[in-house]
């Protein structure tokens, strides 16, 4: 027994090692770098200075980027929920080839973000894009380009993150037994009242998990806004990348990355607090 217990200990080495090598060490480095000093024209020097943080918090330029990132992430989350929920509900209740549709949803994830974003630049362009269709239908007078711009960024973000919302909601909605809805109908509630009073509350966990997932993914969005957006639509991730690669200011980039991370963690904490901690289990929990 003792020998087996002794050997068992080594099994933990693998996940623990992974955690240390790929998560804890980089995080520690990030934290350390965020306090380093960036000499003008140079790279970085070990130091302990709050300069990077002060720079971020005192320059409206950067605070604006953070606000924009949070706003567009929230908007993406709401749109994904509004589009994804009815679709997923339909999928779990009515559609016959459920698996086929789910594979269709997942298949969009097989292509890289970059390819999909460029695809949208074509769809939203002036000459080959959807505006030709609108103009032909008489909805607009002249063809126009929607990209780069805010609308293009929102469309791109929703398109890219919608599958995550759908997949998260799918497990929850599928787990809600049909008989709950039937019980509600039997008690005199019509389809809409049943949906609002029974289906939505029972899928609360999935709504929270899916929304958090999309929100956090959107906070870190880099590819979509850089391809489909103008500099006004650049998100924190682009600014951070810019600082680290083009400005060679790794300490400032690190401090911004940490601030974004704190923001993400803060959001999770707040929502968990509001919704009750058990809701944080990501994904499928039926009742």
């Amino acid at each position, binding site marked *: 027994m003792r020998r087996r217990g002794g050997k068992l200990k080594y099994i933990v080495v693998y996940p623990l090692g992974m955690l240390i090598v790929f998560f804890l060490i980089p995080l520690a480095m990030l934290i350390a770098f965020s306090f380093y000093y960036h000499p003008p024209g140079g790279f970085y020097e070990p130091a302990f200075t709050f300069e990077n943080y002060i720079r971020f918090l005192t320059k409206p330029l950067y605070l604006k980027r953070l606000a924009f990132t949070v706003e567009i992430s929230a908007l993406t989350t709401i749109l994904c929920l509004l589009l994804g929920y009815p679709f997923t509900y339909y999928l779990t209740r009515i559609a016959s080839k459920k698996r086929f549709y789910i594979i269709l949803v997942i298949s969009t994830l097989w292509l890289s973000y970059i390819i999909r974003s460029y695809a949208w630049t074509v769809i939203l362009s002036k000459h080959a894009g959807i505006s030709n269709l609108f103009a032909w239908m008489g909805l607009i007078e002249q063809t126009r380009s929607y990209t780069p711009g805010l609308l293009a960024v929102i469309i791109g973000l929703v398109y890219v993150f919608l599958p995550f919302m759908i997949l998260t909601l799918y497990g929850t909605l599928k787990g809600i037994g049909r*008989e709950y809805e039937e*019980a509600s109908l039997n*008690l*005199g*509630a019509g389809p809409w009242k049943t949906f609002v009073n029974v289906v939505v*509350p029972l899928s*609360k966990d999935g709504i929270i998990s899916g929304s958090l997932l999309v929100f956090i993914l959107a906070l870190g969005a880099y590819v979509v806004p850089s391809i489909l957006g103008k500099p006004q639509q650049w998100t924190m991730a682009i600014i951070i990348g810019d600082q680290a690669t083009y400005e060679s200011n790794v300490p400032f980039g690190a401090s911004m990355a940490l601030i974004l991370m704190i923001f993400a963690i803060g959001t999770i904490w707040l929502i968990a607090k509001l919704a009750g901690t058990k809701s944080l289990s990501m994904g499928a929990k039926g009742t």
Partner: protein
Amino acid sequence: MGRVELRNLSKTFPPNIRAVENVDLTIEEGEFVTLLGPSGCGKTTTLRLVAGFEEPTSGQILIDDQDVTTLPPYRRNTGMVFQSLALFPHMDVFGNIAYGMRIRKLPKAEIHEKVVEFLNLVKLSGMERRKVRQLSGGQQQRVAFARALAMNPSVFLLDEPFAALDKNLREEMQVELRRLQKRIQITTIFVTHNQREAMSMSDRIVVMNQGRIDQVGAPREIYLHPASPFIANFIGTTNLIPATVQRADQEGLHLTTPDGPVAFPEVDFEVIEGEEFLISIRPESVRLSLETDKSVENTFLGTVDFKRHVGELIEYYIHTRAGQEIISSYQTGSPEFFEGDMVRVILNGEAFRLLEKDTL
């Protein structure tokens, strides 16, 4: 209030599964009717048709002489208890029972009064604020009853609500449900595959098989006069003995069986010579005797092959000379027989039922 009429009701599921076929049934006010049958016999589909969860392929459903065939479930005013109970887990006991009344926007005071009244009726007073998950199985059953009844439905529908309960609790709930039903005199349709449950609770039993109604009658009537070998076997235990008509005269009907001739005291229907039947006789109408020497009418010879105690009964499995198996049951405490005993099997001619062979 609460008369239900099913007229020539049929339901076919795609591709071509005939779940319910030409069901005609009238359930009177305040009656407790059980739909009984093996799984897949159409009993649950029939119930769901009444509730409005399924649309019939053809036929009509009338509740209180009003045609509800095309009405959605939320306009039918039926109260249903589901097999899984389907109590709303995000609401407490009060919320569950009040649900329908809140949807109907009844005044708060009235809702409160009603919930208290129905909790009292199902003996759960003071449990308003309990979470559904904190309740025992029996308590959850009662909440489901109260929720279904709080809206004063015309019909009370129950879909195997006791299937998941252990035997003692099930019997307790059966008594409770029947008492409750008698107290408020509500028309009730109860679905079960458990024949004992059906026998002990119902005013009338509707035996269903392969989507059709095989027989409708009071429990005792069905037990004593099963309409087919299927029902005879499904309701309780029975012996089925193949028999051929030899002759019919004033003395009765004379039949030959593999173990010798038997006589039937009276027949109320025409038979022809050579016609084949199955004799159904319940184990309690089969007596045993150790006197095996002298020949008596309506008796077979055999050996006690196997003996077992079933509750308050002892069952003897007799292997007859012709190789048939006949079951005989005695109350515990009567003179006992033992495995290996040579016995005379005495069939009580009064308790015979002749069943047409081809209905099996």
